[in-house]
């Protein structure tokens, strides 16, 4: 079980989080059908580093983007998302 550092709550067990999808699988509302289907069904799934969306479901319920190496599980960055994180 991995350990993530929630931007709001600090280090917590993976069991408190739920995985949603990678950032490149977010389908924007104005995406053309081809683009939308590509994001949904033909993702890159790299062996290595990727930006993943997780939610601290059993904690503060906030969403975050975690940059994780899928081979070593090394976590290089975690950032908050949503209205609060808007510039």
């Amino acid at each position, binding site marked *: 079980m991995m350990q993530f550092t929630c931007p709001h709550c600090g280090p917590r067990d993976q069991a408190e989080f739920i995985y949603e999808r990678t950032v490149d699988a977010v389908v924007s*509302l104005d995406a053309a059908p081809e683009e939308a289907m590509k994001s949904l069904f033909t993702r890159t799934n790299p062996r290595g580093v990727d930006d993943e969306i997780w939610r601290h479901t059993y904690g503060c319920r906030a969403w975050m983007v975690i940059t994780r190496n899928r081979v070593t599980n090394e976590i290089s960055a975690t950032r908050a998302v*949503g*209205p609060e994180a808007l510039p």
Partner: protein
Amino acid sequence: MINFSFDGKTYQAEKGDTLAAALLRNGIGLVGRSFKYHRPRGIMTAGVEEPNALVTIGDGGRTEPNTRATDVFVYEGLVAKSQNRWPNLSFDIGAVLGLAAPALSAGFYYKTFFGSAKRWMFYEYFIRKAAGLGNAPTKTDPDLFSQRAAFCDVLVVGAGPAGLSAALEAAEAGKRVILVEQDNILGASLIRDGQDRDGAWVESTQARIRAAGGRILTRTTASGYWEHDLVTLTQRIAEPGQIPPHGVAQRLWHVRAGQVILATGSIERPMAFAHNDRPGVMLSQAVRTYLNRFGVVPGKRVVIATNNDDAYKTAYALKAAGAEIVAVLDARPAPAGADSGLPVYHNAVPLSTKGARHCLKSVTARVSGLTQSWDADLIAVSGGFTPVVHLHMQAGGTLDWNDAAQAFVPATSRQNVTTIGGAANPEPVFNVVPVSTPKKSFIDFQNDVTLSDVDLAWAEGYRSVEHLKRYTTLGMATDQGKLSNMAALGRLAEKQGVAIPEAGLTTFRPPYTPVTMGLLAGAGAKDAGAHVRRLALYDVHAAKNPIWQPLGYWFRPRAYPVGSETLAQAAMREAKAVRSNVGMTDVSTLAKFEVSGPDAAAFLEIICATTVGKLAVGRGRYTFMLREDGFVFDDGTVWRLDENRYLLTSSTGGADRMATHISYVRQFLCPHLRVSAVNVQEHYAGIAVAGPQAKATLAALIGEEPPRHMSTVLAMISGVPVIILAASYSGERAFEIYVEASHAGPVWAACETEVAKQGGALYGLEAMEFLRIEKGHLVVGGEVDGRMTPHDLALDKMLNKAGGYVGASGLSRPALSEAGRRQLVGLEAIEGNIPEGAMLVTGEGASPQGHVSAAAFRILDGGSIALGQLTDGFARHGEELIATSPTRGQMARVRVVAPHFYDTAGERYRD
């Protein structure tokens, strides 16, 4: 003295004995029968790697099969039984299987697959009967298994000299330390080798670690190393089969460590020679353990076979204890000028053993090319040392080959873990290539795998070590190859003509030693396996003793039978009450979201595929939601409570999914909107009142004119503020009353009184299902099954023409609205009752063209009706089909009709 029993006979043990030590103390050498050939087996080791001495401990619910006799400490009243033998241990019918050994060689199991299925069935019966170890207990374990989380700066695994020193250093440097040891005492090799005989050093080190705040856990195994330095520990509080002193038998720890130090030592290797599996063949260090720790001398006339210096310690210890060393077979060439005072033979490797009455009788060896034999009752074997690198490997580490020790040692670590002591620096050994006949030279004792099985697998084309493992079953079962893997690798490498590191390694997976299922389940067993969500009005329903229906984590009343009514009778009575008078039901579990803010309508037009913006204050409408790929995934209603405040309802079963979806859309797709979407599912309890008399009932309850269909008002019932939504799922004039959950009691009571006055009834989910099917309303999970588009469900006219909602892009793909898709239809029976879940076919033998998603009966008029999905169904009204369920042996002749069987004009819910 401690009394225990083995196979029904009572014996005495000394305090601190393992069961293995106690059996040896009582002169019992034969402890079990082997897995495949039922060969007599004894005690080979003194640790968790024991492959042979597997016994069943305890009885009733506390039975623990396949327990290593070397890993259970004797307590008063311990009951142990040998396994895999019939009628008894010394005379075992199954041993004749040993005579059929050629037929049971590597891969025999797979070979029985060839030929007809009947042949396999024949073999399977005998294989299953004969092969195997202990029997699983049949009674419930009465004990508690607890789980616990802990954090530390340094976790030290193994309390030998290296581990104790490391823990002491870290603790005295002010770090939070946890030291774990699988044994029940600390010291490991110090105890085995008699180096701390008075216990003074171990004692004082232990005291200093504790004084510095360190935590020491004995009888605790670090069984798994997971991501980010999480280590699971399995702690035995009671021994197998023992009644735990405080109810808790074992504890599972999840330790998140800053740093992990592995001082796990090494496991001695056996040697391969013919009949090396007899009772009386024991690992050299195990012999030393029985001598120095338990004061048991396992043999009187002993042969030592070794390829290293360590075994000489065993020879001296045995000699000092009064045993006769008849030969030391040292595989290494003679060193110059050494005199050990022992009968040492160099260039000597064992060839075979002979036995009598399940005891060792003699040992034959090849000494410098000549064959020689000795009478002996024990052979102490040391084939080198295998570092315990399991946790290091589970943590994602790599290994280096140490040629001097002929062993793999930890190289790089992926996590914050270091290996120290014997596990990092094994003793140098001399590489011995087995020269004995491979037939009876066992390398995996637990799975009865011999050198010849490896040879056969090789001859049959198995090259990869992973294939070898699966084909021969080598390295499986409770010992997971702790003794056998290196021997197999050596043989494989020899066959391939490569060095061992090139032959590869199998994967090290948790757990390091077997873990009982109860420990993993912990408190989450039985009713605690999943949580239960209770309705706010649970007690009110429970008092009426309804039939309950699980719905996700919820339980809702399915029907309220009166007297001896069956479910079907009760549900039909309740449904009739709704159709002809008035009924009420608890709808609290529906998903509910309060969406507010200046951009609330804009947000809802992203979530919902229908228009929302034009809704007037106080009005509501039906809506549905799409997945990003354009398929319908939920439906419900949306109500404008105020200028910038909406209430959105959706299905019970999809409530959690919808909550996540709404939050995801809000955070990722439109973070700029000024809107708040709050999940109020459990904030409100809901009561639906439906039927021709619903309006009168509600008027009496709120003391004013009820809202017209699809309107909402705020009102008071019994002094409690409520929101009233005039919506109908049943097809009758109906109202949903929402009230803050903690105040639901008086509102329900008032409704119940009023409904009773009208002569109405309570209704449950089953009646609700009858009502909605007759009316042709959809249910998520039934008609809305994740494969249907708005077009398939005839909802396309309601789509927001401006687009912009989730799924609009996916839905625009032409194939989602083309001909040939399954479409929603109604079905009415011409003959027979329509079976739910039946497939729809045009005739016998034809391919299915759809299925029945929900079946019911007309409530007032009788007759079997159903909703279903049918290829191009909209254009097939009037066609006759067969609805057949071959698995249930039911069928009906049906006619395709529009999916509305009642009040198609929708007049009944309007005033």
